[in-house]
């Protein structure tokens, strides 16, 4: 039975161009895994034109947040100037950003570690 250590070694050890001696890329796989697992965040920014009741309505109707959570996020946007209202994969957050723009909200996205 092949041990885990050997399996890991087999993944990470890639022959060099000449094929003579193995070249070890210790971080390649783990970097890719980390890249995929770092979530993106959707940020909604304050805009004096957007009614507070409207922002709360959007958070409830689009994300399905309960009224209390929608109000909390809306007040964060209003008082702090912005709030993170969703976290997910890059594709998900791009879709949410587009949807927020259809509602007329000021929304942008960034990596959660940025």
């Amino acid at each position: 039975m092949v041990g885990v250590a050997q399996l890991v070694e087999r993944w990470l050890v890639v022959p060099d161009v000449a094929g003579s001696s193995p070249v070890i890329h210790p971080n390649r796989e783990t970097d890719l895994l980390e890249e995929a697992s770092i979530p993106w965040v959707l940020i909604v920014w304050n805009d004096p034109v957007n009614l507070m009741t409207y922002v709360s309505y959007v958070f409830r109707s689009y994300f399905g947040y309960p009224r209390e959570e929608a109000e909390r996020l809306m007040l964060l946007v209003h008082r702090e100037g912005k709030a993170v209202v969703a976290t997910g994969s890059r594709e998900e957050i791009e879709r949410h950003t587009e949807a927020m723009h259809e509602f007329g909200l000021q929304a942008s996205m960034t990596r959660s570690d940025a």
Partner: protein
Amino acid sequence: MILFTDSDRRLVIDFDQQEAELLVLLARQLEQFVDDRAEQVDPLVRRLFPEAYRDDPDAAAEFRRYTRDALRSYKTAGADAVATALTATPSVELDRADADRWARTLTDIRLMVGTRIGLEDDDSEVPEGLVGEIYDWLTELQGGIIAALDGGLSDRGIAEPAP
């Protein structure tokens, strides 16, 4: 302007003839702006079409490339729906989906008027005068629509009034 929810849980808005004409005018202005000027450098473009990536110009440009046309169509279709309905009659009946769409279009119209009267942050004040009054009226209308949505409207599709 009178708003009420009828027994079928539809939102009824009775506009004065003048109010209806004003809203048609504003909706058509929004439609024309989005049609003609969405690619220009303009403070209103930045608000109607916000940058998706504020700290990555390349990603922002790519997002724009893939989404801008659809977002423009979405906004012009919403503006056209409001203008078309009010051109037919100053009294409209909206189900939940219609009211949601009207609330979005009113957001865009208020962004258009608000940008022109300099509403940049929470300290900005609505100026006195006709445009300020129009802005406040739009705010009242949008607030009424949201209150109706919060109160619960029918999901059933209601046919648009015949033109």
